[in-house]
Each structure stands twice: as structure tokens, then as C-alpha cells.
């Protein structure tokens, strides 16, 4: 009987711990991609400042409300601007950042192709 009770408790609690772990992972992932704006060079995840702690609570609340990762980033972007994200999206301010490596790769490739392969 004791074993049955124990078994039941494990069955009830086990899925809950999985859900909690998943939510924790998601929360950690999001807070690692958010910049602590008052402590330069640290993510919200790493920081223990008042600002970062409040932000962590807001992330938890938004996750509980059912918002997706992108929706949470968008929410913080409207409040604090693009700077709060460590991984900026492609827009008019960041297109050089994204396109320059591709451009250099293509031009470099073209030069190598012209000088070494075509010459042969």
C-alpha cells in the first residue's frame, strides 16, 4: 500500500517537474539574450541588480501568460529599444552587420575564382 502511494506521488509529480524544467530552460535562454542595461557587459541572467531581478520576474510573468520567446523580445524592444537584445534582428540599423560578411565572402570568392581558377 505504501509502495502504491509512493508510486502515485511519483506519477503525479514527475510530469510537473518536466514542465517546470522546460519553463526554467526557456526563461534562462531568454534572460541570457537580454542585456542588463544598468550593468554594462552583463546579461540579465548573470546580473543580480535590482533592474535585472525585476526583468526576470517580468519574463516569468510573460511566460505564464503564454507569450512566445519572440513576443517577449518584441515586448522588451518596445520598452527599451533594440539595444536590450544581444542577438539583434535584421533591420535598417543592422543590415551592414548582417550583409557585410556575406558581401566580403562573395567578393573574395569572385577574386579567388578570377585569379586562380580562370587563369588555369
Amino acid at each position, binding site marked *: 500500500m505504501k509502495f502504491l502511494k509512493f508510486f502515485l506521488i511519483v506519477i503525479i509529480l514527475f510530469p510537473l517537474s518536466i514542465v517546470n524544467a522546460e519553463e526554467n530552460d526557456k526563461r534562462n535562454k531568454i534572460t541570457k539574450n537580454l542585456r542588463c*542595461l*544598468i550593468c*554594462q557587459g552583463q546579461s540579465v541572467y548573470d546580473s543580480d541588480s*535590482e*533592474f535585472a*531581478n*525585476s*526583468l526576470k*520576474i*517580468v519574463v516569468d*510573468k510573460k511566460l505564464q501568460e503564454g507569450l512566445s520567446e519572440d513576443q517577449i523580445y518584441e515586448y522588451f524592444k518596445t*520598452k*527599451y*529599444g533594440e*539595444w536590450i537584445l544581444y542577438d539583434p534582428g535584421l533591420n535598417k540599423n543592422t543590415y*551592414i552587420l548582417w550583409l*557585410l560578411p556575406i558581401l*566580403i565572402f562573395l*567578393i573574395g570568392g569572385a*577574386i579567388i575564382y*578570377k*585569379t586562380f581558377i580562370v587563369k588555369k
Partner: protein
Amino acid sequence: MKNKILPFSVIIIFGIIFFIFYKGLEDTKIYTPDVNTKKEIPVFNTKEFFSGENVKSLSIFEVDKVYLLNIWSSWCVPCRQEHPLLMNLNLENKLNIIGMNYKDNLKNAENFLKELGNPYKEIFIDLDGTIAIEWGAYGVPESFLIYNNKIIKKYIGPLNQELVDEINLLIK
């Protein structure tokens, strides 16, 4: 001619890269938030400071009135410095100063107001700092000038006489 194109294009590419990085060097690495935002004020539920009753943000901020929302705390030293300026602002004109008590012990906050005076028309509390995040605030002290439910200007850090003069000019 063909031989000249290659060094020429390499120089141009490096020139562009140099220009971009040089421009990047000139940019400040210290985060400078946008203070002239015309953002709508957030909608939130909170508690009134003295009574502890639930209040809605919509009932605090009315249309066609100018408000100064001041985020303060009894543990914040710069808040003490700016408090006399807020008292003066309250006396001199019809500006409605609203207080947001940030992550504070309510007893300490009450003592703070007893000691330095209460310039606020209304005070609400933000125990965990989440309402401040809704406002896009960074910490304490911080002030927002509000008109028609829109943030006209944001003052990060303590107010000084120069900024108070600016507020007086803006609300005239």
C-alpha cells in the same frame, strides 16, 4: 587593365571596412536611452500607498492634464537630493506629481515622507519593480513628464534645478 582591377577592388573593400569600423569607434559604447519618446503610458493595476487599495492606472492619469511621475524609494540617496526640488515644483505650479514607490519598505517610505514632506498628489507602489519595467524605467530616481496619456519626456537620474526649469518651460 585586368591586373589593375584586382588591387583596386581590394583597396576599395578595405576602405569601406575601415570606414565602417572607424565610424563604429566614434559611437559611444555607453548606453544612451531615448528620452524624447512619445510613447503611450502603460496600463497596469497596482495598490495605493497609504490605503493599500487596488487602483487602476487609468484612474490615476486623466486626459488633458500634465503629470510628473516620479519613481522614488526611501533607500535611494539621490531621491533625497531631488526631493526638495519636487516640493518646490508642487508649490509653484499646478503640475500633478504622482509618486511610484519602488521596491521599498512601506514603513521606511512613510518616514521618508514625514521627514522631507509629501509633494505627491497620489502615490502607488511597485513592490517587485515590474511596473517600472512597464514604464521602460531603469531604476530610481526617474521621472516622466506626461500629457494626454503620452510620455513627453523622460528624466533618468535625479532632477536638478536646470531640469526643473526645463519642466516649467515645457508645461507653460
